[in-house]
């Protein structure tokens, strides 16, 4: 069994836990304390508000231990706000959080709630059919370092990318019924 944690400070936590519960050979784990971090094989940083999640990461001294585990190779996946938390650079914000991925992101890149949208795409290698994508006040990636693999672009903007054991998506697979990305992430865990 792979123990996959979901950072449970704020946001769409239960949604990710529910999705993980449907993936074969995965035990979903709620991560709220330093002691939880030692016992997981991978971690999802969910959508929510990055300023709220980032502040709580610092307040409860989770930033350091998480950085250590990510640097030593623990697979991690950030969705929406989670992408901002993982990024080394944020184009329109001075705050920095886990600073793990060599990507520069733009927060609220599409605008306000009226600009939130859904679409669906073919992603060969990840899923046989079309995958629904939900963007809620979403960020996108402005630029990536050479070692970052771009998984998906939408209208010229990078919305999914992977750097070795780290994955980031602008959209929310946990708000759909489609398990493709959760299966893909579970596959990143050896």
């Amino acid at each position, binding site marked *: 069994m792979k123990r996959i944690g979901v950072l449970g400070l704020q946001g769409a936590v239960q949604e990710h836990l529910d999705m993980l519960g449907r993936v074969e050979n995965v035990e979903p784990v709620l991560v709220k304390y330093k002691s939880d971090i030692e016992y997981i094989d991978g971690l999802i940083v969910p*959508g929510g*508000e990055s*300023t*709220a999640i980032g*502040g*709580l990461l610092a307040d409860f001294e989770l930033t350091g231990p998480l950085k250590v585990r990510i640097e030593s190779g623990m697979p991690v996946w950030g969705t929406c706000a989670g992408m901002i938390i993982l990024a080394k650079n944020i184009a329109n*914000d001075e705050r920095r959080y886990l600073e793990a991925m060599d990507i520069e992101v733009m927060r609220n890149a599409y605008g*306000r709630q009226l600009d939130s949208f859904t679409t669906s795409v073919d992603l060969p290698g990840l899923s046989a059919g079309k995958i629904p994508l939900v963007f809620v*006040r979403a960020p996108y990636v402005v630029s990536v370092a050479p070692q970052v693999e771009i998984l998906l672009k939408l209208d010229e903007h990078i919305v999914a990318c992977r750097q070795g054991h780290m994955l980031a998506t602008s959209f*929310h697979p946990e708000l759909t019924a489609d398990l493709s990305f959760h299966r893909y992430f579970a596959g990143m865990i050896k």
Partner: protein
Amino acid sequence: MTERYELNKNLAQMLKGGVIMDVVNAKEAEIAQKAGAVAVMALERVPSDIRKMGGVARMSDPKMIREIQSAVSIPVMAKVRIGHFVEAQILESLSIDYIDESEVLTPADEDFHIDKHAFKVPFVCGAKNLGEALRRIGEGASMIRTKGEAGTGNVVEAVRHMRTVTSEMRKVQGASKQELMTVAKEFGAPYDLVVYVHEHGKLPVINFAAGGIATPADAALMMQLGCDGVFVGSGIFKSSDPEKRAHAIVKATTYFNDPAVIAEVSEELGTAMDSIDVRELSGNSLLASRGW
């Protein structure tokens, strides 16, 4: 179920486990964001001041709302009077992230709430019981909150409303399928939404606590009672140390099941807002009785 309505429910899901704070200017909005608020409610006067000043309370000045929108990166909400769909049109034109059709403002219509399906922008509405929650959802609300009794610093009404919704949901769940139409009639609730609650044991949208939350312990109480997050109105910026209290309520909302954390953040918060015993209020000063 339109795609837009789903997206609006999705935004509410992103607010879960968080605190939404009332602010009256850009400076307070920045303090709220820094303390870890997941959204701010932009309004000219917090509920306790609305109580004191009396008169008609209306939607806030659009200029003030715009200033707050440009001051913070978190979602910005604002209130309209019950039934005042033109105030809602104005807020939609400002690209507000969420509209609160609120009993805290003076109702503009005593019979009809806004047809929220007519808008692209999402709405949150207050409810005292399950029937009221389902009526608002039927009208298009994509998020519900308890009404509580705003501006009192007294959590008793929020507790009552949350407990009422929970126990009525249990009743709906326990009813047999053939009883559901009669239940819908008793609650004055749309039949399809009663069926949803029967099948899922929860509301189809998220449900926050609001009205009277003044301390970290109040916030944790509402979370343990099953709320998805909390609104704090007058409780923060009417207290003696808003920054510290805001931060403490955020932490207590996340670690609502951890008394040690709640104890720690409750230390030396200074004095809470001026509070009112709800039993001393009557008639028109009971805000929760506005709307139906």
